[in-house]
C-alpha cells in the first residue's frame, strides 16, 4: 500500500529523515515510535505531501507520489492537536472531506451521522468545536479523517493529549475500529504502550533513521540497540565481555542466553531478570528507592546501588519489595538478558 524508498528530508544541516525505507501493507496498522525530534511527524508530512522529500520516493499503491499535491493523494491525516476548523460545527467538520470529494448532500448527511455514531458522538452534530472536551475533539478529528475513506489513514500522536484512562480505552476502540473497517493505518507516537497496543508492527526511529522494525512483542523482547532499549525504559545496560555461557560485567558474572558469541558486548538485563536474594547471595546492593507502579501485578520498581558498577533496576511484587536502605543480594536470570547491537551508547546519535 505505502512504500518509502530512501526518503531524506533536510532542514538546513540537520536531516529530519535520513534515507528512510518503510513499507505498510494493506489493512495493516504500523506504529512509528520515537522520542520527539526523531523525525516521526516529518515522516507523516512527507507521505501526506505537505513536506517535500529531498531525495527518495514515496509510493502509494505502487504509484510514485512525486509532484502529486496533498489534496490529490487520497490519504487521511489526523493532526496532533486535531486542527478542527474553529468556525464550523462538528457536523461540518466531518462533512468537509466529503464535500471536497463532491459527495451529494443527502449522502454526506447520512455518512456524517454514521461516522459520528461510530466514534460515539451521535448527538454532537450541531455542537461548536470549541465546546468539545479533548477526548471528543479527538473523536471528531478521527471521524473527519475517516470520512473521505482514505487509502491510508495517518495519525500523529493520536492520543497524546488525553488522560490515561481515556487513552487506554480509546486504544482498544481504535484497534477494533480499524480491524472492522479494514483501514490501513500509519500512526506515530512517543508512547510505547500506545504503540504496542495499537500496532501490528512497530518501527522505532532514532534521529531520522529507523532503529528497529518488528512486531510489538519482538521489539519489546529483543530491543536491537541500546537506544531502543533505553527508549523503551530499560536502563540496566552495561559493557561486558562474553566468555562461554557467562559475561564479565561491572556487576560481576552474568549468565547470557545460549549461542551468544564471545567477545566484548553491550548487555541489557530487564528489571524482571534482576532477582532479589538475601544479602549473602549474589551481588551486594543497597536499596536506594522504590516506586510503586500499580497495575495488576502490584509491581514495584526497586532502584539498587551495587558495590560496583552503575545503578540497577529491579521489578518485583509489592509483597517481595525490600524497604529503602535495606541490603540485598542480586542474581540474574539469563532469559531476561539481551545482547544489544553496537558497542557504544548513542553511537549513531553522534554521527548524525
Amino acid at each position, binding site marked *: 500500500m505505502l512504500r518509502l524508498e530512501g526518503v531524506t528530508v533536510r532542514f538546513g544541516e540537520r536531516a529530519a529523515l535520513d534515507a528512510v525505507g518503510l513499507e505498510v501493507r494493506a489493512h495493516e496498522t504500523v506504529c512509528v515510535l520515537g522520542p520527539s525530534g526523531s523525525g516521526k511527524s516529518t515522516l507523516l508530512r512527507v507521505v501526506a505531501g505537505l513536506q517535500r522529500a529531498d531525495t527518495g520516493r514515496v509510493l502509494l499503491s505502487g504509484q510514485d507520489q512525486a509532484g502529486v499535491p496533498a489534496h490529490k493523494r487520497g*490519504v487521511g491525516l489526523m493532526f496532533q492537536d486535531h486542527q478542527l476548523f474553529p468556525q464550523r460545527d462538528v457536523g461540518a467538520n466531518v462533512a468537509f472531506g466529503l464535500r471536497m470529494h463532491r459527495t451529494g448532500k443527502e449522502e454526506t448527511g447520512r455518512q456524517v451521522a454514521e461516522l459520528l455514531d461510530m466514534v460515539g458522538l451521535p448527538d454532537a452534530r450541531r455542537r461548536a468545536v470549541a465546546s468539545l472536551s479533548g477526548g471528543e475533539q479527538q473523536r471528531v478529528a478521527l471521524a473527519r479523517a475517516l470520512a473521505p475513506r482514505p487509502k491510508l489513514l495517518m495519525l500523529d500522536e493520536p492520543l497524546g493529549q488525553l488522560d490515561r484512562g481515556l487513552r487506554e480505552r480509546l486504544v482498544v476502540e481504535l484497534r477494533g475500529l480499524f480491524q472492522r473497517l479494514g483501514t490501513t493505518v500509519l500512526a506515530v507516537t512517543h508512547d510505547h504502550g500506545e504503540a504496542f497496543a495499537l500496532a501490528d508492527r512497530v518501527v522505532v526511529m532514532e534521529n531520522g533513521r529507523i532503529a528497529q522494525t518488528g512486531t510489538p512483542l519482538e521489539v519489546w523482547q529483543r530491543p536491537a540497540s541500546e537506544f531502543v532499549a533505553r527508549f523503551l525504559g530499560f536502563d540496566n545496560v552495561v559493557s561486558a565481555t562474553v566468555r562461554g555461557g557467562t559475561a564479565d560485567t561491572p556487576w560481576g558474572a552474568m549468565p547470557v542466553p545460549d549461542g551468544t558469541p564471545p567477545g566484548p558486548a553491550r548487555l541489557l538485563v530487564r528489571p524482571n531478570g534482576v532477582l532479589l536474594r538475601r544479602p549473602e547471595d549474589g551481588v551486594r546492593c543497597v536499596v536506594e528507592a522504590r516506586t510503586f507502579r500499580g497495575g495488576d501485578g502490584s509491581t514495584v520498581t526497586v532502584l539498587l546501588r551495587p558495590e560496583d558498577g552503575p545503578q540497577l533496576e529491579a521489578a518485583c511484587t509489592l509483597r517481595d519489595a525490600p524497604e529503602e536502605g535495606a541490603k540485598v543480594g542480586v542474581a540474574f536470570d539469563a532469559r531476561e538478558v539481551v545482547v544489544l547491537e553496537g558497542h557504544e551508547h548513542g553511537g549513531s546519535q553522534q554521527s548524525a
Partner: protein
Amino acid sequence: MAVPAAFFVLFFGYPVAAIVGRGLRQGGHWNLDIVGRVLSDPDILQVLWFTVWQAAASTALTLALALPGAYVFARLRFPGKGLLRAVVTVPFVLPTVVAGSAFLALGGRGGALDEWFGLRLDTSVWAVLLAHVFFNYAVVVRTVGGFWAQLDPRQEEAARVLGAGRLAAWRRVTLPALAPSLGAAALIVFLFTFTSFGVIQVLGGPRFATLEVEIYRQTATLLELPTAAVLTLTQFAAVAALLAVHAWSVRKRESALSLVPAERTARRPEGPAQWAVLWSVLAVIALLIVLPLAVLVERAFNGPDGYGLAFFRALGSQSESGTFVVAPAAAIGNSLAYAAAATLIALVVGGLAAAALTRRAGRLVRGFDALLMLPLGTSAVTVGFGFLIALDEPPLDLRSSWFLVPLAQALVGVPFVIRTLLPVLRSVDVRLREAAAVLGASPLRAWREVELPLVGRALLVSAGFAFAVSLGEFGATVFIARPDAPTLPVAVARMLGRAGEMNYGQAMALSTILMLVCAGVLLALERVRTHSPGEF
C-alpha cells in the same frame, strides 16, 4: 501577486513618474541642479523639519491617547460599544478640510472654546496635533484593538500565575504580541500626519506648513513644477526609508499567535482600575471626537433664521451662485458609487497581495510589501495631478471615464486592506490549511473554505476602512472628479472656498450628511460582525 503589481505600476508608478519627469525635464534633458538648490533653501528646510517633528509628536500623542481606547474596545464589554466604535471612526472618513473647519469652529477665533473659556488653539501647534489625534484615533483603536480582541487572554493569565503583576504581564506577554499591529498602526498614523494636507491648510496658518502643503502651493499657486517635483521626490524618499525600516523590524517580530473568537475575550469591567480606564477613555472620546463633531452639526443646523433645516433644503436645488452644475445633493450618490467601486478594487487587489505575502517569503516579497504602502506616503496632490497628465492618452485614455476616481481612491484603500489582513492571515495556523489539503481541498479551495472564514472579520474591517478612506479622499479626487459629478468632500471644499454664510452653512450641512452616511455604513458593518454565524 501579478495583479496587484500591475495595478500599482500602472496607476501609481506611472502617473507619479510622469509628473516628476515633467517637473525635472526641461528642454528635453534632465535638469538635476535644481535638487541641490531646493534642498538648501532655508525655508524648505524649515518645512522639512516641521513636517518630521509634528508627525512624530502627533503619532506619539495618538498612541498614548488611543492605546487605552484599544484596550477598552478589545477587552471590555459595555452597552453602546458598537455605536461608540462607529462614532470613533467617523472623523477618520471626514474630509480633512471639514475636520479642520470643525476644529477651527471649536478652538479658533470666535469658536466655542473662545466663547466659553477664552481659550484659543489655532495660535499654537496644539490645534494641529489634536486634530491629528482626532483623525487617527480610529486607526489605532481598529488595527490594534481588532487584533487585541482576538489575542487569547489565557496567555496573560499564564504570566499572572507565574508571578507577573498585571502591568508586567501586559508588558511582557500582550505588548510583544501586539507589537506587529502596533507598529502597523504607528506607521499609518505617521504616514498620514507626515503627508497631512487639509488640516494644516486650515489650522496651520502661515507659520506651519508640511511638505504636502508646500507641494500644493508650488504646484497650484506658484506653478513651480520643478520645485514641486523635487519636494515630491524628497517626500517619496523619506517615506520609502521609513517603510524599509518598518519592513525590517516587522520581519524580526513575526510569530504565530493563538487567536480566539473576539466575543469570548471581552468581559464586563471589574474593579476600580478597569472602570477608571473605561471612563477616562470615554472622556477622551467625548472631548476630542464628539465635541468637534457636535460643533460641526450645530453649525449645520444653525441657519440664518435660527435653528432649522435651511441649509439642508438648499442642498437640493442648484445654487444660484453657480458653484455647481448639479444640485449638491447629487454628490451623495456619486460618492457612494465611487467609494463602493473603490472598495471592491481595493479588496481584490489588497486581498490578492496579502494572500501572496502570506504564502511566500524572501527579499523580493518583503520589498513588495513595503512598496504597497507607498501610496499612503505619497502626495495625493501629485497622484491626482499625475493621473490627469499620464492617463489621458492611448492606450490608457481614462480621463473622461468615471472609473478614474475609484481607481485613485482604491490606491489609498489598498494599503489599509493589506495592513489589516496581513497580521491575521499570518497568524492563521498553517496546519489548518494542511488539514484541509489532506481532506482533499485544493489550495484555492482551502483558502476559500478555511482562511477566508477565519479572516472574514478582518476582511470586513478592512472593507470598512477602504470604503471610509475612499469616501473621504480629497487630495487626488479634487483633480480628477468631473465638474458635473463631484464627490461629497469635493463639494464641501468648493463651498468652503466661497464666501458667504449660505455656502459655509451648506458645507457644514453636507459634512453632516457625509458624517451620517459614514456612521451608517460603519454601524451596518458592526451588525454584520456580530450577527454572522460563521464568524471566527
